[in-house]
Every structure is written in C-alpha cells, then in structure tokens.
C-alpha cells in the first residue's frame, strides 16, 4: 500500500532523513518511533505530499507522491503534529469545511459526520468554537478531520499527544478498529503505544532507520545481551571491581544507595552460575540474582543512543538512561 524507497530530505545543508526505505502492506498499522527531531514528521510530510523528497520515491496505493499528488492526497487522512484547526469555527463547521475540501458531497457528509462524531466522542462539543476547546479536544477534532472522508490510508503524527489516559485508550481502540480495513502509519515517542496498537515498529534516529520489526521481536532480539540484577548483603569494598574480573562480564553498575548491582554480560553468555558461585565461595550472602528482560523502552534507548545497533553491547550511559 505504501512503499518508500531511499528517501532523503535535505533542508539547505541539514539532512533531515537519509535513505529511508520501508513499506507498509494494506491493513497494517505501523509505528514510527524515534526521539524528537529524528525525522518522523519529515517522512510523514513527504508521504502526504506536503513537500517532496530531495531524493528517492514514495508511492501510496501505486501513486507517486511527487508525480500524482492529487491521487495520493485523496487516499490519505493526515493528522499533523499541530492539529490544523481554525479556532474561529465550531467543530461542526470545521468538519464540514474539511469534508468539502476532501471533495465529499452533502450526502457523504450527512452519512459520515454523525458517525465520526460518535466514534471520537465529540458529541458534547459539536457546536462549540474550537478556540474554546481544551488541548485534548482539539487533538480529537484533528483526528476526526483525518478520518472524516474514510481514507484507505491514515497518517497520524503523534495522535494521542495531549489526551488524558482514558481518551488515549479510546483513541488506541479506534486505531486498532481501523486496522485491517485501513493502513495506518502513526508516529509516537511513547513506547507502550507502539506495542499496544502496532503490528510493526520502525525505529528511526537521526534521519536513519535503525530497526524495523514487530515489537515483540525487537525486544527478543535484544534480550540475548543479558542484564542481571544482583543483591548481596553487606557488599565488601571494591565489590564491583572484583565482579568485573569474572570472564564474560562486561560491565557492572554500582547502586548509589545500596541495593542491586546491575551486571551486564556478553552476548549469549549466561554467567549466572559463575556469578553465584563467585559470591558464595567468597563467603558473602547472596540475597537475589535475577535476569532483567529488556522492555521496548530499553530497546529504543539502546538503538537511538548509539550507532552500534542491535548486535553489539551498549555501554553504561545507555544503561543509566534506561534505568532512569
């Protein structure tokens, strides 16, 4: 449905995205994950024909975003970063205007408007001026605008920003219900969101794609570089340095106020037995030893903070971030 090939976008001499390629099949929900300024919005703007790529091609439903923008635009519902609302209009006036812009007829509008207002629970505010709505409501109006003409492709730039937890769940449910019949690309920096609604995640950092996979695969692939949490009763001085002496252990992070040591070991090596033996034979009291599986958060931080990607170990700085 969506096919992006080697897209590069430069603003002057600053490169926003570089050789980004991915494709989305019909009915799939894809999340774009990345820190602010990673190039998520730029990619979306290219897909929605808001601006052309410097190099590379993007097609939506077989139509080229540069050559046939009108055909592409007709098939896309787009929620930009800032909801594109006119404050001086009421919600109904605004949605009617957007519907007309998208080429909907009066009959289409009469059919779709009540449906969308119901779906996104805008019934209470339908006749209020958008200027008087809260951030969350404006975001929802923006979302309503994107789905109004029932486009086969939805591109949502941070759809749940500014919503309260209950609304976030509602919107996620809505997006999930759209999956299958619609192709959805959404960007987010909230990881549970990606896990909750998406079949695939594209992690993007500094304008490059660092990983594309299903959320569960991503963390599974990383779990191999084990992290262990070790608690010892009254650890002796230089305990961390002595641990580092054990073969296979890569890094040890000392707890600041007592508690668990964070032990990291090399890829694919299980050092739990050695570690336990080491502690016990030295006569210290082992209180706890457990593996820590990486959450998507860890994966994300690891991937976006280093160039080294999935297969290599990370250093301590990511670790501290990950725990924070």
């Amino acid at each position, binding site marked *: 449905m969506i096919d992006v090939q080697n897209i590069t976008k430069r*603003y002057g001499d600053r490169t926003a995205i570089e050789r980004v390629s991915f494709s989305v099949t019909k009915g799939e929900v894809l999340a774009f994950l990345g820190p602010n300024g990673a190039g998520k919005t730029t990619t979306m*703007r290219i897909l*929605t*024909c*808001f*601006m*052309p790529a410097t190099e590379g091609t993007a097609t939506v439903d077989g139509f080229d975003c540069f050559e046939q923008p*009108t055909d592409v*635009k*007709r098939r*896309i519902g*787009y929620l*930009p*970063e*800032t909801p*594109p*609302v*006119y*404050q*001086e*209009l009421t919600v109904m*006036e605004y949605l009617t*205007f*957007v519907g*007309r*812009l*998208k*080429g909907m007829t*009066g009959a289409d509008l009469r059919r779709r408007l009540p449906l969308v207002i119901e779906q996104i629970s805008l019934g209470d505010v339908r006749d209020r001026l958008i200027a008087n709505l809260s951030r969350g409501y404006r975001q929802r109006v923006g979302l309503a*605008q994107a789905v109004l003409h029932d486009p086969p492709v939805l591109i949502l730039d941070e759809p749940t920003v500014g919503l309260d937890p209950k609304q976030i769940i509602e919107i996620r449910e809505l997006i999930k219900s759209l999956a299958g019949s619609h192709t959805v690309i959404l960007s987010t920096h909230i990881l549970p969101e990606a896990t909750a609604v998406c079949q695939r995640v594209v992690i993007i950092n500094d304008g490059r794609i660092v990983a594309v996979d299903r959320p569960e695969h991503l963390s599974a692939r990383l779990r191999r570089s084990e992290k262990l949490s070790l608690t010892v009763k009254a650890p002796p001085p230089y305990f961390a340095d002595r641990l580092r002496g054990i073969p296979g252990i890569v890094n040890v992070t000392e707890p600041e106020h007592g508690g668990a040591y964070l032990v990291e070991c090399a890829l694919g090596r299980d050092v739990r037995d050695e570690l336990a033996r080491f502690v016990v034979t030295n006569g210290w009291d082992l209180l706890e030893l457990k593996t820590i599986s990486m959450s998507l958060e860890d994966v994300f931080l690891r991937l976006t903070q280093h160039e080294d990607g999935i297969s290599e170990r990370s250093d301590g700085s990511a670790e501290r971030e990950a725990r924070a």
Partner: protein
Amino acid sequence: MTPAQAIVAKELRSAYSSPIIYVVAAVFLLIFGILSYIAVVNAGVQAIRLMQIQGLAAKINLNDLVFRPTFYSTSIILLLSLPILTMRAFAEERKLRTFELLMTSPVGINEIVAGKFVAVLLTYTGMLALTGVVPVVLAMFNSFDWAPVFTGYLGLLLMGALFLSVGLFASAVTENQIIAAFLSFGILLSVWLLGAMGAILGDTPVANAISYLSFIEHYDRLVRGLVDTKDLVYFICGILFMLFLTHRVVESERWK
C-alpha cells in the same frame, strides 16, 4: 459545493468572526463619508459664490465637484485599508499550521488562491456597496450624470481588486501578518509613484511605459468617465499576474 466554494465560504465565515473586518469597514466608510461631506460642502460654497456673481441659481456639476475628488481621495484609503483585509490570508494559515491541511487536501493551489481572492473581493465589494448611500442621497437633492459615477465605481472595484491581489501575494511570502500588511502597502505605494516617475521623465517611450505600469493613470481615466479597453486590460492583467505570483510562492513553499 466544490472545494473552492468551500474555501470562499470558510474565508468569509472566518473574516466575519474577526473584529478586523468591522474596524476596517467602519474606518473606510467613515473616511469616505467625511471626504464626500467635505466635497459636498465645498460644492455648496462654490454654488453660492456663482449665485452672487451671476445673480441666479447656478446649476452646479456634482460629477466634477463631488464625485471626482471623493473618488480620487478614496484611493488613498484603499491603499491603507485593503492590505489589512488581506494580511491574514496566507500568513495566518502558515502560523497556525492549518496550511498543512490545505496543502495535503486534494485541492489545487489555484483553487486555494482563487477561493481566498474571491472571498476578500466579496468583502470589499460589500464595503463599496455601502458607500453607494452617498450618490443615492445626493440624487434626491440634485440631478447629475450617473454614467461617470458608475465608471468611477468600476475603477474603484478594479483598483481595489488589484490591491487585494497584491495583498494576497504579500501575505503568501511571510507568516507575519504585520509584515504582510506593510509589504503590500509598500508595493502599492511604489507602483503608485511610478506614475510620478514617468511624469518627470517627460514624453518619451520609456516614461510612457513607466507611467503605464502605475494604476493611478488608469484609475484616473475611469473616474473621469472614460472606459478604455487598455485600462481594463491593465487591471485584469495586473490582477491575474499577482494571483499567478501568489500561486508560485505558495507552491514554492513545498520546496523549502
């Protein structure tokens, strides 16, 4: 309703919910009223003077004494007030990011530009229509030739439309409304002064070409009651040219 018509409707709806249009229209009508009042009183003074000299009730020419001076002065108010009507057009869309909605909808840029132009033109036509009170009231007390009044209004409409198209262009190049207003004011005043520039160069082909570019000469002929195709062509080409430039600027936005 086509997308372009929807844009016209939305622009009008937005314009009338903002105080700008009411302030601009009120000031415009107030000054138009003051100008025509001064012209009428002035005409009265002259009539009395003629009566004293000739000893009989003089037939005064309202076209020369009232309408022409009023129409001339109105061009200055338009120069100051029309940029205010157009400054929001694109600048605000860009500032509030609603521009992204327009540009990602299946609407051509020409439809967007045309929609916005028609909306401000309708507003301006409404303002002009309200000034019609002055000739209607004068017609109750005196008779005058309506034809030059109509051509004067045609001149006002065409010149105003040209000002609006310049204003749209200025609004498209910036996201700051004040810059947009001041820029269109600057462009219009410069083009106006081309007329004076041509005049100091004497009667050479270059000078004539320069004065041809100024709208004031063309407006002048319409106010005097002369409808010349060359003047109509000037205004229509000018408007289309400015709208074309606006289109290019809006389109170029994508390339930044």
